[in-house]
């Protein structure tokens, strides 16, 4: 039986003062679990609001980007002996009641990582990009960029290691690393709310999309042989 004391929720946040407090208190109300907010160099009061809501805050000295922040949380989880880490976005997209769904799926012992996937979202061009990356990486997952994920201890160990420190996003690069280490990744469908504030860091402008596509393609090519 799963002990909720062994579970930590990791929320990377950069200037999310409008949403972070509500998310943290919602989680705290529903489950007795540790919530860690990684403040990725915010210039607003994200840290104060998160602390007030009862989270542990890891303050980054400078912004490391989404994945750098999440990895900080994973290293924290590893150091403090948490057995399961759940990552969530700080913009209010992910519903708190998805957490038990992920834990349930992870409990099956059939998987090391569970991704909360919401496939209906996104424009046709985004779906095109995803199917392109599915082909390129040889992976059969529907939602490659979902930030709602549950990692077991094996996955935490791997992803908090040096080999994951040069990644920039919590998406394909992470999945490729897990795949190479032969960890099992499964998906479970979830619902998401529209973003309360902010917008996707990846899909913010044409320039950002292009450099993201290039970056991810290179990652896939670097791992290409492994999927033959």
């Amino acid at each position, binding site marked *: 039986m799963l002990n909720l004391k062994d579970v930590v929720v990791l929320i990377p946040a950069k200037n999310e003062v409008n949403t972070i407090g509500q998310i943290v208190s919602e989680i705290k109300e529903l489950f007795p679990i540790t919530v860690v907010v990684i403040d990725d160099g915010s210039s607003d009061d994200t840290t104060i609001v998160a602390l007030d809501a009862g989270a*542990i805050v890891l*303050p*980054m*000295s400078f912004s*490391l980007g989404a994945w750098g922040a999440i990895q900080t949380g994973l*290293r924290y989880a590893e150091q403090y002996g948490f057995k399961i880490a759940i990552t969530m976005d700080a913009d209010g997209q992910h519903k708190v009641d998805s957490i038990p769904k992920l834990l349930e799926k992870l409990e099956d012992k059939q998987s090391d990582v569970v991704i909360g996937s919401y496939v209906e979202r996104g424009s046709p061009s985004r779906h095109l990009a995803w199917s392109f990356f599915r082909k390129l990486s040889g992976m059969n997952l529907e939602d490659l960029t979902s930030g709602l994920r549950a990692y077991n201890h094996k996955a935490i160990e791997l992803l908090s290691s040096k080999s994951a420190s040069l990644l920039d996003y919590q998406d394909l690069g992470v999945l490729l690393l897990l795949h190479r280490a032969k960890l099992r990744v499964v998906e479970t469908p979830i619902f998401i709310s529209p973003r309360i504030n902010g917008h996707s860091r990846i899909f913010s402008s044409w320039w950002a999309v292009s450099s993201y596509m290039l970056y991810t393609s290179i990652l896939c090519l670097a791992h290409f042989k492994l999927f033959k």
Partner: protein
Amino acid sequence: MSYQLTSTFLGFFIAGIILWLIRRDLLHSRHAAWWLVVALSIMLLGIFPTTIDWLATHLGVNYPPTLIFVLGMGFILIKVIAIDIHQSDLERKVRRLAQRLAIFEAENKRSK
């Protein structure tokens, strides 16, 4: 003025700058070794520019100056890649350091 005088002067000038930089302690000893070799080769090639002709003939290169350019650019490429590898290594270290610092700061705050 003969071209040999020009190349000798150039060789000494460039080697002199490199040696001066090394002596000023502006280069980490690991890089200094590489640059010392570069300085010496530039000096030798400056004094004996015909070395390259001799080498080119033995390597089957018809036009010796191309050999200089090919070798020069080759070494520059190797050096630049080495810099990028080093840079990536530093990036990894800085990121991990920042992560550890954040964890320590949180611990520190909680134990207060």
